[in-house]
């Protein structure tokens, strides 16, 4: 397996980092959680971050943490969808198609929440006053986030990005045409 420094990957896929941080910020706004500082992109580790006050409710924490996963996945898939089919299925992509695939993969590969997101989510359920049922629901989410973050070492984020942006359209067409 070859190693490429994180900042270089972030630089090559910077739109995904911006969308990820913007999604955090927008979820904070929707839940009226004060945001203290936002870095949309930088060449460093982490490539971007949002510092906000602790949300008052657990569901707010949950959505602020996994919000970028939903937004980046949906946006990445939709942007790349019509471009992936001519390139993958027909070998007839133009420059715009390749640009849209790059953008879609970049956005989708930054969908995976960071360990920082997992940490703040766990902090929100760790304290007193949170029922064990909520902890029981949140714990696997936190575990999955940590596992996915660890998977980045094995290019899980890129695999996920390509899967969402390129694999999903191909799979959906195959399923639809098999059913139809």
């Amino acid at each position: 397996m070859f190693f490429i420094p994180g900042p270089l990957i972030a630089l090559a896929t910077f739109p995904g980092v911006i969308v990820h941080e913007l999604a955090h910020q927008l979820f904070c706004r929707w839940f009226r959680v004060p945001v203290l500082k936002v870095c949309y992109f930088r060449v460093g580790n982490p490539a971007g971050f949002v510092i906000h006050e602790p949300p008052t409710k657990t569901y707010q924490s949950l959505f602020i943490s996994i919000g970028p996963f939903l937004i980046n996945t949906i946006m990445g898939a939709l942007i790349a969808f019509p471009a992936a089919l001519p390139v993958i299925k027909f070998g007839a992509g133009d420059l715009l198609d390749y640009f849209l695939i790059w953008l879609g993969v970049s956005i989708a590969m930054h969908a995976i929440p960071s360990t920082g997101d997992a940490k703040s989510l766990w902090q929100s359920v760790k304290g007193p006053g949170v029922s064990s049922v909520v902890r029981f629901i949140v714990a696997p989410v936190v575990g999955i986030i940590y596992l996915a973050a660890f998977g980045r070492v094995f290019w899980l984020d890129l695999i996920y990005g390509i899967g969402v942006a390129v694999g999903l359209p191909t799979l959906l067409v195959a399923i639809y045409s098999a059913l139809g």
Partner: protein
Amino acid sequence: MARQPIPIGIKLAGVAIVLLMLFALIRIPSSISAAIAFERGERSEQKLQFAKAENEYQKSVQAFPTSDLAHTRLFVTAYRARDGGTARREFEYLRGHQLDAKLVGEISALLGSRH
């Protein structure tokens, strides 16, 4: 409540990405239709229903007129369905293009098998 403003550059980038997404959304139906037509064409071809396959490949070629693969499949099925006009037109198109070896092999085999 402290409300961190979103910089104008980020807003513009966000608007650009949303516009690209809308542009992509407009293209999704025709891409899906063409890809599904191609899949159906392949299935019909496997069942030796060449006229049906030709009809499906026509849809793919209309959506992706620069796809050599779609043109090749259309040529092969039109030839086998004895649609001389389409086969001739597609052959003329393919003759001017650099095709990959597999497609060239298939066309050569098809023409070589002519009785």
